[in-house]
């Protein structure tokens, strides 16, 4: 019989957990991606001009995650080539009630009427907002399977089994140019990947971080889309 030092058990369990977390952090599953844009006209942004990242209205059934909108805004604003991003709540509050989920214009043809309302054009000019980016889409779990069971007892614990699931992140950004009151174009990002969770005592997650990658991919492409003054 092998003697067991019971005082070491918590450390062993902690070590397994740390190992699993580290493995999950270092290892990640493959993600396939497609990012593309369609430009309707020339773009460009001058110093002092800003953009706002908004979610399309939930009154229209949109379910874009608030964390995703934050992520895209942070990514576009980050770095030496970062653009000035106005927090969307600040923008919506300054223009109350014209950019509420119920009242925000659904198409650019509503912009001239909106701009003619008292104080709207002045408020937009004061904030320096040149582009409004409307985000649509979400991340869904499209498939999954496998099984896993975990147990814990006085002698320790562990998991055995295998689980997998597939995530699809599909987002589209529609860019409105408030200078010309026109649709500047769209940027779309489709990311999909399958996550795996094999476990032989310790589960080792291989996570396909489709939403995080879609955020980065969409933000980088949006930055290029807005800054590059290219012809259609």
């Amino acid at each position, binding site marked *: 019989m092998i003697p067991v030092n019971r005082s070491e058990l918590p450390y062993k369990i902690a070590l397994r957990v740390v190992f699993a977390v580290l493995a999950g952090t270092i290892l990640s599953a493959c993600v396939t991606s497609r990012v593309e844009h369609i430009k309707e006209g020339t773009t460009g942004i001058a110093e002092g001009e800003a953009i706002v990242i908004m979610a399309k209205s939930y009154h229209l059934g949109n379910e874009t995650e608030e964390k995703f909108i934050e992520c895209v805004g942070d990514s576009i604003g980050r770095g030496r080539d970062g653009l000035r991003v106005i927090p969307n709540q600040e923008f919506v509050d300054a223009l109350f009630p*014209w950019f509420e*989920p119920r009242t925000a214009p659904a198409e650019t043809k509503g912009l001239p009427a909106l701009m003619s309302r008292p104080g709207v054009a002045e408020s937009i000019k004061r904030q320096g907002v040149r582009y409004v980016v409307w985000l649509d889409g979400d991340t869904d779990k499209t498939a999954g399977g496998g099984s896993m069971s975990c147990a814990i007892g006085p002698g320790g614990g562990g998991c055995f089994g295998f689980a997998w699931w597939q995530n699809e992140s599909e987002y589209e950004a529609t860019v409105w140019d408030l200078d010309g009151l026109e649709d500047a174009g769209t940027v779309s990002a489709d990311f999909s990947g399958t996550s795996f969770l094999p476990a032989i005592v310790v589960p080792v997650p291989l996570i396909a971080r489709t939403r995080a990658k879609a955020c980065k991919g969409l933000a980088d492409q949006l930055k290029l889309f807005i800054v590059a003054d290219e012809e259609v």
Partner: protein
Amino acid sequence: MFVAALCGCAGSRVSLQNPTIPEPLIEKLQISVAARYPSAFDNFVHEEQVIGKEKWTIDLGGANRLLFTQLFGSMFTDFMVVEGNAKPSDLQIDAFIEPSIDAFEFSVPNQSQKDEFAVWIRYRIKIFDGAGVQVANWPIAAYGKSQSSTFGGDEALRRAAVLAMRDAAALIIMQMDKSTGISKLRDTSARSNSAPPPVIPNDEGVQNFVAEGIRDDSG
């Protein structure tokens, strides 16, 4: 508390802490208006036991009074809140507003199978002219939703309720005059001050002024 948790009937209580709306970018209607808030509107509490799950209590407290006072103050050039049983005819005003809540509903992630809380509030706004005759009875349905993964359970429900109230405010700003004709009461009031007293309109006359398709079913 432990027993309550074991039997699955632990409750959550959500209170709204003085939500406000930003100053709206609108032109005020040139009209003098007073509002009275019924006590059920002033201290609205909604309790609901989600089937097989926990009990939720949503306490709007003074949030409705605060929001509507701020809203009407931004919409009309002359606005005041009256308490008790003050009669419109004693107040020298063009219009008198009495808002109420017809229904309050919400859904939690367990019900919708989505990572979100949603709140629906159905308000009813009754409008009376300066003589105290009801001229409009306008129901409005407001909606707000908030993701629980971003804000956590209680905070997400609170935020959804605030968004629903803000939605109601936006709807009132955009539609109130079109749906109730409140701005016309100024002309009516001016005429009645300068001319001999008109004949008090009968029920049919009142109905002509009520928003189209809206029936006064309040009894």
